[in-house]
C-alpha cells in the first residue's frame, strides 16, 4: 500500500499537470496510484519517484487537459438538461392558468383602466423576488462557500452559469430606470417586449435557482472530503 506522502506526491503531480479540481483529481490519483503499485510490483528495485515518472509516461501530454475539459462539457450538458426539466415541470394547467390570468389582468388594467404604472410596478416587485431567488445566498450555498477547502469543478461550472443570469437581470434594471427617472435609452417597443417577456425570464431564473441549490446539496454528500465540517 502506498503511504500518505506518496499519495500526496501523486496529487501534486496531477496538480502540476493542470488537474486542479478535487472531483477530477481523486479518480486520477487512484488510477496513477494503481499504475505505480503495478510498476513497483513488477520491478521491486524501482523507487517510488521512478515508478511515478514511468506511470506519468503512460499519459499523453494533453490527456489530463482532455479529461478536465470533457468533464466540464458533461457537467454543462447535465445542468442544461436539469434546467430544461425544471423549466418544463412548471407547465402544468393550474400554474399556466394563474400566469395567464395575471398577464391578462396587467394588460387589461394598463390599456383599459389607464393604469400605466401598473406593469412597471409589478415588474419591480418581480425583480425584487427574482433577484432574491436568483442571487440571494441560501443557507446551503453560503455554507458550501464558507466550508469549501478544495476546488471543485462542479462548483466552478455552476457559478459560471449563475453569473450568466446577470445579463438579462441588468437589462430589466435598465427598464426600471426608464420608468422611474423617465430615462429612455431605447425605443418604447423594446420596453414593451421586455415587459411581456418578464414572466418567462422569472421562470427561467427560478428553474435555474432550483438546479443550483439542488446541486449544492448533492455536492456536500458526494465530496465530503472537500468541505470542512
Amino acid at each position, binding site marked *: *500500500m502506498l503511504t500518505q506522502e506518496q*499519495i500526496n506526491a501523486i496529487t501534486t503531480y496531477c496538480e502540476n499537470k493542470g488537474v486542479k479540481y478535487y472531483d477530477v483529481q481523486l*479518480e486520477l490519483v*487512484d*488510477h496513477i496510484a494503481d499504475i505505480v503499485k503495478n510498476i513497483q510490483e513488477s520491478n521491486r528495485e524501482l523507487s517510488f519517484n521512478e515508478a511515478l515518472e514511468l506511470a506519468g509516461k503512460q*499519459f499523453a501530454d494533453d*490527456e489530463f487537459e482532455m*479529461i478536465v475539459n470533457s468533464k466540464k462539457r458533461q*457537467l454543462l450538458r447535465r445542468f442544461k438538461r436539469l434546467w430544461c426539466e425544471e423549466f418544463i415541470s412548471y407547465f402544468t394547467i393550474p400554474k399556466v392558468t394563474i400566469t395567464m390570468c395575471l398577464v391578462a389582468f396587467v394588460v387589461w388594467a394598463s390599456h383599459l383602466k389607464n393604469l400605466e404604472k401598473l406593469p412597471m410596478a409589478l415588474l419591480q416587485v418581480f425583480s425584487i423576488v427574482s433577484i432574491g431567488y436568483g442571487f440571494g445566498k441560501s443557507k446551503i450555498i453560503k455554507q458550501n462557500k464558507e466550508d469549501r477547502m478544495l476546488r471543485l469543478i462542479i462548483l466552478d461550472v455552476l457559478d459560471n452559469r449563475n453569473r450568466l443570469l446577470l445579463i438579462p437581470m441588468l437589462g430589466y434594471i435598465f427598464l426600471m430606470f426608464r420608468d422611474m427617472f423617465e430615462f429612455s435609452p431605447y425605443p418604447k417597443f423594446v420596453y414593451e417586449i421586455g415587459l411581456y417577456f418578464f414572466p418567462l425570464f422569472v421562470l427561467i431564473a427560478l428553474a435555474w435557482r432550483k438546479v443550483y441549490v439542488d446541486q449544492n446539496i448533492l455536492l456536500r454528500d458526494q465530496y465530503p472530503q472537500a468541505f470542512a465540517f
Partner: protein
Amino acid sequence: MYWNVMYIRIMNKSTLYKGCLEPIIMRLLKDNGRMYGYQITQMVKEITKGELQITEGALYPLLHRLEEQGVVETEMENIGNRVRKYYTLTKAGKKQTSIAMDELKIFMQSLNLIVNPKLA
C-alpha cells in the same frame, strides 16, 4: 487514391476500436457489477491479451459521458488513504447494453461480409 492508401496505412488499431469502446465498457460493467477506471483498462487488456489498450484520455471522458446520460451511476469508497470512484450500470444502462451488444453483433456480421465476401 494515393491519400486513401496512405490513410489506411497510418490507421492504427485504436482507430478501429474507437467506436466499439462504449459497448465494450458497458458489457464489462454488466458482467462485473461495479468497476473502477484502472480495473476496466486492465480487464480489457487481459481479455484481449494486450491487443486492445484503452488510454485514460479515452476512458474517462467516455465514463463521464455515460454518467451524464444516466447509463452509469457512481459511488465513492475509501480505499486505505485514497478515494476510489466505482461505476455501476443503471437500470436504463442495463437495457441499453443489451441493445448496444445486438448492434455490435450486426456490425460485426456486416464487417465479416466485407472481409470475407465468399461467406455471403
